């Protein structure tokens, strides 16, 4: 069976062939998405949720820390972006920075309480904190607009000093979101394959051993949660810009469950690209199945159950089986050079 900790020959690279293909697909999407019967805004949603899912999987798949309340940080990012535009100034970078900072602070605060826990207690506490944030979003009317949410959030222009790029059009906004998605993908790939990411994977496999070789397990768990919340905040800021609003439903348990489902169905537990596949599959299912039946979520749910029962490695595991044969993993070949012999 393949695992996330498997080593490939691309592990030590910044840009891999898969990242190039992904970037080409993403950047060319506006030119062909309508030709296949879909629409520009779908691309924005998919790209935003890919950011969210990659950040989430750093925690869920790589560190093995099961958060079921991550929608909260998506929502905090969305509200912070809106709050900045309404109360500080209309600025794209300012808003996105505010979204990331707010989600990072909230994530770090929660992680302070969580990081001594593991297993079911960790998972339950993430739900509890998620619900606290969701409830606060509904009740703090003066800050969030209550159940109505924060409306009329502007889409600020991309101001590069010498030129400005208006983002009112979905296609223009898509290119910004897609560029950030590619950037996040590259950084995520490096993070999970750099020492930090390998240490998280070690902690997932054996916390006790990690501590006894000198790692401050608590600190790494805190860092993983905080980074993951930061990326959720970035996705939330972009989501608020895309929707031109922020509302409590973004922080609900339903949204938190959705990201878990996407990552699991896609195969985030066995492959870096699992979350990406999961997000694409979900949105395609929503649109294609949704155009056939109103009960599309029931069919999607059944597919989830089937996947968990028969192929828990998800879509990525399925594709890996097709490529390498069932039960086999790609041969580990990170380095052709032999290890050093004693002098």
């Amino acid at each position, binding site marked *: 069976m393949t695992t*996330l900790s498997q*080593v490939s020959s691309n592990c030590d690279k910044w840009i891999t062939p898969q990242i190039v293909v992904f970037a080409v697909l993403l950047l060319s999407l506006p030119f062909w998405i309508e030709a296949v019967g879909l629409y520009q805004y779908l691309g924005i949603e998919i790209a935003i949720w890919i950011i969210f899912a990659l950040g989430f999987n750093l925690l869920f798949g790589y560190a093995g820390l099961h958060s079921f309340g991550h929608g909260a940080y998506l929502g905090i990012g969305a509200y912070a972006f809106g709050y900045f535009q309404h109360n500080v100034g209309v600025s794209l970078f300012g808003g996105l920075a505010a979204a990331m900072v707010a989600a990072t602070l909230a994530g770090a605060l929660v992680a302070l309480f969580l990081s001594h826990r593991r297993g079911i207690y960790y998972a339950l506490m993430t739900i509890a904190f998620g619900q606290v944030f969701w409830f606060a979003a509904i009740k703090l009317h003066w800050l969030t607009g209550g159940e109505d949410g924060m409306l009329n959030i502007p889409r600020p222009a991309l101001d590069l000093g010498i030129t400005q790029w208006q983002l009112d059009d979905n296609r223009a906004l898509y290119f910004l979101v897609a560029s950030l998605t590619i950037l996040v993908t590259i950084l995520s790939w490096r993070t999970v394959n750099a020492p930090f990411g390998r240490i998280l994977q070690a902690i997932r496999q*054996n916390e006790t051993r990690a*501590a*006894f*070789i000198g*790692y401050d397990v608590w600190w790494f768990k805190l860092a993983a949660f905080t980074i993951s919340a930061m990326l959720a905040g970035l996705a939330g800021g972009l989501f608020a810009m895309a929707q031109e609003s922020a509302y409590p439903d973004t922080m609900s348990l339903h949204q938190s469950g959705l990201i878990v489902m996407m990552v699991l169905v896609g195969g985030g537990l066995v492959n870096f690209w699992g979350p990406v596949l999961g997000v694409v599959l979900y949105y395609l299912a929503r649109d294609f199945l949704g155009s056939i039946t109103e009960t599309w979520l029931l069919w999607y749910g059944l597919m989830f159950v089937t996947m968990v029962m028969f192929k828990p490695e998800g879509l990525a595991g399925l594709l890996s089986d097709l490529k390498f044969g069932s039960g086999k993993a790609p041969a580990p070949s990170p*380095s052709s050079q032999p290890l*050093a012999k004693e002098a």
Partner: protein
Amino acid sequence: MALFEAINIHKRFGSRVVLEDISLSFEEGKISGIMGPNGAGKTTCFHCLTGHHRPTRGSILFDGQDITGASPQKIARLGASRSFQLMNLFDDSSVVENIILALPEFRQSYARLNRKVFTHPEFLQKAGLILQQVGLQGLEWQPSQSLSYGNRRALEIGVALAANPRIVFLDEPTSGLGAEATRQLAELIKNLRKKYTIVMIEHDMNFLFELADQISVIHWGQVIAQGAPKELQSNKWVQRSALGEVA
């Protein structure tokens, strides 16, 4: 002077006293053994020495520094590493990654996003030397869970050595090993004594008597005898204790 000392260690879990006034001293460059019957408190003693449990009272000194109640990671960073009676490896990771993860150079580079892991010459060089030391060369890229039991034991020791320790605690290293694997392990430990201070908990009396310079016998949470193997071999209490006959 002793490199590592436990002074009057006492450990209780609720009303149950597991260790009572245990004093141990491990000299630099020597192999020290701890033996005793099942349930004597040997592993609890190791857990206290390596930071897994905080002693209820007493103190632990490592190179003169008081480390009583320090966390396992702090003690590990100071240069004390350990293996476990029940195998404790990173099972999804390759053999070489298990070693690389324990290297202090790797640990210190945790924040470097551009740091290569599997093509980094220094990491590979050091991991290669450790694997050669424990006899696992050629198995570098195997997942550690696919190794034979004896090789997993050797990898446990390799991980402990990779942390560049001054003192290595080995908890029941022969546990589950056959005669041939035990003999190979004895050879390995003989070679390691040139470089490390070693403390071993061991059930196998012959194994311990063959290798150790100094042995402490623990029974019912107390040290009932200490001395060189030859002195202890003729000690009636020790013989009866090791056979579990003391009542």
